[in-house]
């Protein structure tokens, strides 16, 4: 058996097999080391896949050697290769990071279960991204979601509200997934196939009410999963009360993967000549994207809890992605894909910085961040740089995203949207600036200095965090990598979608 031929299945098989094995390992450092090792292997495989796709074009892997329309196909083009690299990359940074944080936040006896869940979650996210079969998306989506519910609930040791937020997330997530299945059922009824490429062929020219209803169900279902603005209610609580390492991981990956699924269904399955799609762009994605950008960002400004603030900011940032998609142009789609990757990088780094603070101070409220620059300089500057990236300051990835988005807005003739993007960035500047001011400019609070000195976070946390921070800067300067690949991916998607 040639390993290179089997490469596409490795990111799925490896964590899926490794996850139950993790349960057999004695609690302590071993499960963590094992999981970290696996995550690096997966990252290597995903980078190899990305390189392969960039060089040789689309990979189609037939699972069990069954030919596509009937068998399950893993179909990797640039768009999902990029998301694969992002998800596995964030995993490769968060998994080594998790050890110290998890040790303080989770009962030690539970640690094998925790890392098992993390691997299963990773399997689900990678599976959603890699597969070319519509029903497979649902299965992997639920694999990742159900493990996320359990992971969020593990925050109960610090705050019992983790349990109720996990429960609410479960209810909403299940409704979303079930809507998605109803949509798939309608599409299957209309076409008799579940393979995405095959669906696209058979849906061409089909504009009846069954397909329209299927589209609507899929839009709402995935909208719930990606926390589209009015359906985001599960997100802030889940991110706030989850263990810090989990927040860092799911904030950087889960919603991004859902955005990818939306893009995949819109452009690869339905295509632009499906009349309903353009209506959905103008009447659903555009207004909801804009509303999310402003309202969620405004709510973020008034949060006392830094994790909750970042969670609301995530809802706002998803607004940018939806806005980019809603233009229905190649540039807009490219901007959305770029922001998917970039937002993963910056939110990952920000949540990791908060995790460091939580580790040392046991508190995630704004007050705890006061005067941290003296005591935890590495953490502080990581937060500052990735925060600036979130705002969209030049030399960071955030700027690249905003640049492409504003460009796309002008190209689409929607000048108002371009200004709104800039205006909402100013709101981001307010909520990030508030925390940065507390950290850098204020003197430390008296009580904190009196009792025990606060140390910098351990190296096992600082190094992975700074890897992401440096990625924020590196990809902000060397734009040809993310932006270049995302533009090519968008061009390829538009060709399939039959766009202008």
């Amino acid at each position: 058996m040639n390993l290179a031929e089997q490469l596409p299945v490795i990111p799925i098989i490896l964590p899926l097999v490794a996850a139950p094995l993790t349960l057999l390992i004695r609690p302590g450092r071993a499960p963590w080391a094992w999981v970290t090792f696996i995550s690096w292997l997966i990252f290597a495989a995903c980078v190899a896949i990305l390189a392969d796709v960039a060089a040789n074009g689309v990979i189609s892997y037939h699972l069990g050697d069954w030919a596509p329309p009937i068998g399950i196909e893993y179909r990797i083009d640039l768009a999902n290769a990029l998301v694969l690299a992002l998800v596995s990359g964030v995993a490769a940074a968060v998994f080594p990071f998790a050890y110290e944080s998890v040790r303080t936040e989770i009962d030690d006896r539970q640690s094998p279960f925790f890392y098992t869940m993390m691997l299963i979650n990773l399997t689900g996210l990678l599976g959603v991204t890699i597969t070319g079969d519509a029903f497979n998306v649902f299965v992997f989506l639920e694999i990742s979601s159900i493990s996320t519910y359990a992971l969020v609930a593990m925050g109960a040791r610090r705050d019992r509200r983790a349990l109720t937020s996990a429960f609410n997330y479960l209810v909403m997530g299940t409704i979303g997934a079930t809507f998605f299945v109803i949509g798939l059922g309608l599409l299957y009824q209309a076409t008799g196939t579940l393979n995405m490429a095959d669906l696209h062929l058979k849906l061409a020219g089909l504009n009846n009410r069954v397909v329209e209803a299927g589209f609507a169900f899929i839009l709402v279902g995935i909208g719930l999963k990606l926390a589209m603005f009015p359906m985001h209610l599960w997100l802030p609580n889940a991110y706030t009360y989850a263990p810090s390492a989990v927040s860092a991981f799911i904030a950087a990956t889960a919603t991004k993967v859902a955005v990818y699924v939306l893009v995949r269904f819109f452009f690869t399955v339905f295509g632009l000549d499906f009349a309903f799609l353009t209506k959905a762009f103008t009447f659903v994605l555009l207004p909801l994207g804009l509303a999310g950008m402003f309202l969620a960002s405004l709510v973020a400004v008034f949060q006392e809890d830094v994790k909750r603030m970042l969670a609301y900011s995530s809802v706002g940032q998803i607004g940018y992605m939806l806005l980019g998609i809603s233009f229905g142009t190649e540039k807009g789609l490219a901007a959305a894909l770029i922001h998917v990757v970039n937002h993963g990088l910056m939110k990952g780094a920000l949540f990791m910085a908060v995790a460091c603070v939580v580790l040392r101070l046991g508190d995630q409220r704004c007050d705890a961040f006061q005067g941290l620059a003296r005591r935890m300089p590495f953490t502080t500057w990581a937060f500052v740089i990735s925060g600036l990236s979130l705002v969209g300051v030049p030399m960071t990835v955030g700027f690249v995203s905003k640049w492409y988005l504003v460009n796309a807005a002008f190209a689409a003739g929607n000048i108002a949207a371009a200004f709104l993007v800039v205006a909402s960035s100013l709101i981001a500047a307010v909520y990030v600036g508030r925390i940065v001011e507390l950290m850098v400019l204020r003197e430390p609070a008296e009580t904190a200095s009196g009792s025990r000195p606060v140390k910098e976070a351990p190296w096992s946390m600082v190094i992975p965090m700074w890897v992401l921070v440096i990625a924020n800067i590196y990809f902000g300067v060397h734009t040809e990598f993310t932006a270049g690949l995302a533009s090519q991916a968008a061009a390829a998607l538009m060709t399939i979608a039959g766009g202008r």
Partner: protein
Amino acid sequence: MIDFAFIAERYNYWIFIILMMIGLYTVISRGNLIKKMVGLNIFQTSVFIYYISVGKIAGGTAPILIGGEDHGEEPAAEGVGQAAPALAQSEALHAEPFPKIEGFEANDLSTALSGTEPGAEAGHEALHAAPTANPPLTAPDEALTTVPPPSFDIAPPADAAQHAAGAGQPLDALHQTAEIIYTNPLPHVLILTAIVVGVATTAVGLALAVRIREAYGTIEEDELEAADDIAEFGHAMTGKAGA
């Protein structure tokens, strides 16, 4: 003007929609976490029913080979209680390779669909048209049972086929078996997967409810909110707590 026949014909969709709404309403309106989980379950089950009813074709049988080399002997033997006619049956089937193919084709929703023009209701129409376009399932069975006169005793298979051809009836049987309708198995398989997912979700949800009960001493949503408010602000808030 309400087309009652149109509505009544699609009763499976009505069952699905009503169950789905009952489930969704329960999830939204009930404050008790267990009731919410049950509502969620009903909601999911409605979708299972939808998938299963979509896959079912009127008069269709389970997707197993009927009248094939190995399995064909049984119904014939049952019907007549003799070995020779069964042999004749299987030989006759050999003449026509893979008789099941046509049955499958008739089952393929896409081909059925492409036959009709894409209109507002094309999907529905095609689906409902598909089963009626084929002869009902009972036909082959009847044919099998009425096939050979019991006087055939131990004739060699080829002869039996000849005789049968002469008799005229088994040819009919052959013709009929070629058009056995199979219920589409794929939605059923998909729903098996979805049922597993649903069971897992329910298990996690109920486990969370147990943990919530341990942590809060209640599983009523409003009491949980009040408990959180008291913990955070020192008193219960009237109305919804600020986000």
